[in-house]
């Protein structure tokens, strides 16, 4: 079953249009909710005024004063209020202040516009540099949401003796996840001690994050809060932390009104207020010896976290841990900071900090190669990590890693050396179209960073049902990535059953254990491994109790489960994540094994840039990766193609334009994601090298494809146009023109 292109479990319903998304749900007597937002980046809320012409007595109105529990969104740091109360500080322009609900949506829109906030404005910090400069102190004592140092060796002892010291600065912009289905929640609540109950149905990645947030908001115990994850139209990290806020809002309206309340964002609202990829600035200083081998690396990595911490501490951590890319360097100092600004909080997005720091490093490698007069291929080859080497945190590479072989495979596939020659000749002619080909090499850590998995100690299980089939019990959600199918394949493989005898249970916190959030390329590898163990457990107990004998046919297994179920009522088997003894991590010093393992990749891009318009066309793209083992080749290729498309969009077009901290291009017309007409054929290659930490040897792949495209594209632009200041993504035609004029004049 592992390795087979099993058909998507929920594919048929999606194709037929019968899938039920949150907005398709109807509840008897449900009201619609709406959110009144702060609209100014910083100030003190002095009052709330309800304007004329609106029948306010018909409305459910919720303010911070109505909150039964704690007015803080449960997260890594409990710093974000659900609603700003009177006398409290507004810290970004999309901050929720008042919630309204009514049965008539038209009236609701009019009412939202009729609420006026009285605010004493304060000077705001709207960009990263002002935050670092402490032009205003807006968060803690130093505006820092998190700071990390990673040290290895002594870089300061090296600079003066190095043959080459090369510095660079690189920037990346915010990026919107642009899931097809905007954020949506339906809340149903019952008041009254001791049986109060808060239930939400919604589009969310992490049911237990929402569960935790609601418990704290309503001050209720575990079993009085229930979260059901419905089918999701995409998420990409965008439904990791913000759903806790929306679920809280819908539940507060429902709590106050006693009716079900549906809170569904339209595209414009979703774009302005929900989390985006953290903008970044990376400064790199590198020392090489005469041969081009790394002597020292100093990296100053800064993220713009927006107004609250949300996921910033862990995004920063992953970014810092990937900032040295796939190279071995004896002396390293990484200084990473996430700084606060008065803008809507940044959050999780596929890649989680790694695309930002990898863009800087993989771009810097080509800059260094040019400055030292070396071939970027050979410069990388000299410095690749290999078995026995240690990373910046001192993690020893245990796998038989052949990054040179991976790189050569990709270069051959795209015809790198021949094309470089041909393009050099072509680019010397007066054809305004200039061509380039280049690549990036990178990795992505699988699962949570450091001790994250051990601390979380996720649980997942399998259940034998009355009809003899097997159900997967996990809180991991399906967002289009194929979790339902892949989990079923893993369990089917462990039990030697056809995949249609295994299905995934509805993700309802009342029934499924906390298998952790559906993030961090951890679902297949980490949760999948738990399911493999749980499946073996189920089989063992069927055997031990005499229901089953090996070897068995699927039919015999089915009968065994039916019998066991009839006899015992319920048969479930769970497995829990345990810290692997050989994996050691120290959070205080940031030393040890940052990830159980990494997926490794090399991506190559061929581009054509029109020097009349500075439009860039991606002509060819090869994406090769070593991912342990491919569980489902069709779904895996889909993940890579989609991720590459998102990476190309981030590299070339996707630009969040803000004014006073507010996104102003909050429509699909003006926030430019690529269409199929903008993308090349993406050629996907998988190399397999099974890893013991994952089911059947599988590692994580979800985020990996987001990391490689941007640096490969900008390196290819350098190949086409010469050494311009290609230091930023998205490298829009407007920016490229400016860079071109810096070198070639206006």
């Amino acid at each position, binding site marked *: 079953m592992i390795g087979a292109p099993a058909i998507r479990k929920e594919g048929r319903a999606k194709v037929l249009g019968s899938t039920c998304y949150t*907005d398709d749900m109807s509840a008897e007597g449900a009201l*619609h909710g*709406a959110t009144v937002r702060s609209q100014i980046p910083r100030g003190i809320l002095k009052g709330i005024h309800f304007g004329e012409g609106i029948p306010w007595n018909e409305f459910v109105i919720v303010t911070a004063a109505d909150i039964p529990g704690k007015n803080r969104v449960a997260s890594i740091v409990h710093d974000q209020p659900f609603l700003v109360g009177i006398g409290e500080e507004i810290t970004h322009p999309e901050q929720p202040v008042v919630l309204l609900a009514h049965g008539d*949506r*038209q009236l*609701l*829109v009019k009412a939202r516009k009729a609420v006026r906030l009285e605010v004493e404005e304060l000077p705001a910090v709207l960009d990263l540099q002002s935050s670092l400069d402490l032009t205003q102190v807006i968060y803690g004592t130093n505006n820092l949401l998190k700071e990390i140092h990673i040290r290895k060796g002594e870089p300061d002892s090296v600079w003066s003796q190095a043959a080459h010291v090369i510095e660079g600065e690189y920037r990346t912009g915010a990026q919107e996840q642009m899931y097809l*289905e*905007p954020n949506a929640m339906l809340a149903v609540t019952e008041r009254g001690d001791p049986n109060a109950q808060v239930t939400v149905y919604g589009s969310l990645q992490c049911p237990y994050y929402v569960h935790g947030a609601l418990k704290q908001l309503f001050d209720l115990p575990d079993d009085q809060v229930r979260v059901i994850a419905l089918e999701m139209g995409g998420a990409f990290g965008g439904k990791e932390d913000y759903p806790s806020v929306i679920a809280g809002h819908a539940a507060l309206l429902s709590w106050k009104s006693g009716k079900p309340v549906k809170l*569904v*964002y*339209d*595209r*414009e*609202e979703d774009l302005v207020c929900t989390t985006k990829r953290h903008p970044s600035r990376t400064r790199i200083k590198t020392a090489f010896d005469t041969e081009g081998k790394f002597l020292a690396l100093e990296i100053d990595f800064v993220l713009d976290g927006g107004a609250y911490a949300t996921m910033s501490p862990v995004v920063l951590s992953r970014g810092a841990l990937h900032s040295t890319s796939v190279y071995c360097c004896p002396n390293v100092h990484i200084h990473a900071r996430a700084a606060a600004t008065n803008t809507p909080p940044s959050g999780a997005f596929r890649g989680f900090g790694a695309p930002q720091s990898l863009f800087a490093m993989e771009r810097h490698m080509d800059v260094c190669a040019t400055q030292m007069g070396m071939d970027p291929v050979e410069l990388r080859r000299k410095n690749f990590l290999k078995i026995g080497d240690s990373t910046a945190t001192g993690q020893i590479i245990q796998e038989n890693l052949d990054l040179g072989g991976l790189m050569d495979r990709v270069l051959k596939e795209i015809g790198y050396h021949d094309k470089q020659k041909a393009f050099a000749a072509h680019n010397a002619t007066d054809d*305004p179209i200039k061509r380039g080909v280049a690549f990036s090499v990178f990795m992505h850590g699988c699962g949570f960073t450091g001790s994250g998995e051990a601390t979380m100690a996720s649980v997942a299980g399998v259940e034998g049902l009355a009809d003899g089939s097997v159900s997967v019990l996990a809180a991991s959600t399906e967002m289009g990535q194929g979790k339902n199918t892949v989990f079923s394949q893993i369990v089917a493989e462990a039990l030697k059953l056809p995949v249609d005898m295994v299905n995934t249970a509805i993700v309802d916190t009342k029934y499924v254990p906390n298998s952790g959030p559906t993030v961090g390329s951890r679902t297949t590898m980490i949760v999948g491994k738990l399911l493999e163990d749980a499946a073996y457990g189920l089989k063992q107990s069927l055997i031990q109790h005499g229901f089953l004998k090996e070897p068995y046919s699927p039919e015999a297994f089915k009968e065994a489960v039916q019998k066991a179920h009839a006899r015992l009522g319920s048969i479930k088997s769970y497995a829990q994540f345990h810290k692997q003894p050989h994996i050691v991590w120290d959070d205080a010093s940031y030393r040890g094994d940052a990830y159980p393992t990494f997926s490794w990749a090399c991506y190559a891009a061929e581009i054509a840039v029109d*020097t*009349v*318009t*500075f*439009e860039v066309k991606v002509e060819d793209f090869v994406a090769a990766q070593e991912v342990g083992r491919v569980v489902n080749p069709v779904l895996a290729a889909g993940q890579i193609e989609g991720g590459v498309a998102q990476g190309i969009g981030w590299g070339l*077009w996707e630009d969040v*334009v803000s004014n006073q901290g507010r996104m*102003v*291009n909050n*429509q*699909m*017309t*003006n926030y*430019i994601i*690529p*269409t*199929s*007409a*903008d993308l090349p054929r993406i050629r996907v290659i998988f190399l397999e090298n099974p890893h013991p930490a994952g089911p059947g040897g599988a590692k994580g792949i979800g985020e990996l494809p987001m990391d490689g495209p941007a640096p490969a594209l900008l390196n290819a632009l350098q190949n086409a146009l010469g050494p311009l200041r290609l230091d930023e993504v998205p490298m829009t*035609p*407007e920016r490229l*023109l*400016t860079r071109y*004029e810096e070198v070639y004049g*206006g």
Partner: protein
Amino acid sequence: MRSYLPDFDLQVPDSLGEALALLTQELGQYRPFAGGTDLMVLLNAGLLPAARFLDLSRCQELRGIQETSTHLSFGALTTFTEVRDCKAVHQHFPNLVKSARLTGALAIQNRGTLGGNIANASPAADTPPSLLAYGTEVELISLRGTRRVAYEAFHQGYKKMDLAPDELLQRIIIPKPLGRTFHFYRKVGTRQAQAISKICLAACARIENGTVAEFRIGLGSVAPVPARARNAEAVILGKPLEALPIEEAQLALLADISPIDDIRSSAHYRRVVSQKVLGQMLRELSQSSF
């Protein structure tokens, strides 16, 4: 998915006469509604103050492409798909075919109309540059009668048109280019499809005895209205193909445009790239074989 469901009133008159009567009776009350591809975007976003619409779909008089020996005449309701499907348009107005093909994507092309593209009065619309390059006239109709206006005089300022509240745009009339002609169209959008223009340039030249005898350039997205590039045209007019003063024309173009910074692009990019596209067009013109 939409949180805003505005109240609105839609009238569907059975004929053009009835439509004009409604427009006249309640002057300024109705907003004509053709394909709706501009209006629906505003309506959805809650940005449309108008709440009363006049659906033109049954006004047969506003449909169809008619050909005479000297002209093609397009009903205001002609869709982009109809433009793309019409042989005579391919033969005489290749720029118009390109504008239609590069508008939105297929669904929009099936529904969006030439009349709507003009009367929406967006400086970024994609057919106006072609219409300007071809010396188009528009025919307007009201109960008072019909009148014709040179299209280049139709747009009078940002979103201001020579269109009275009781008038509808009836037809778009384009003279067939005579003799040897050169056609050029380039849209520089934000992406390859479903894109709004950042710059759009269309040109049509008539060549006589190796010199440029007639020349019109239409520009989009670089001025408050779709605009002719009269200064650049003047530099080129009458010049022999082998010695076109390209750089001089590029300089002259600066007097024809007044680009701005907005969320789609910068004034600088629009200025430089429209000069470069002009240069590309003139190089193609000078290398064309006649």
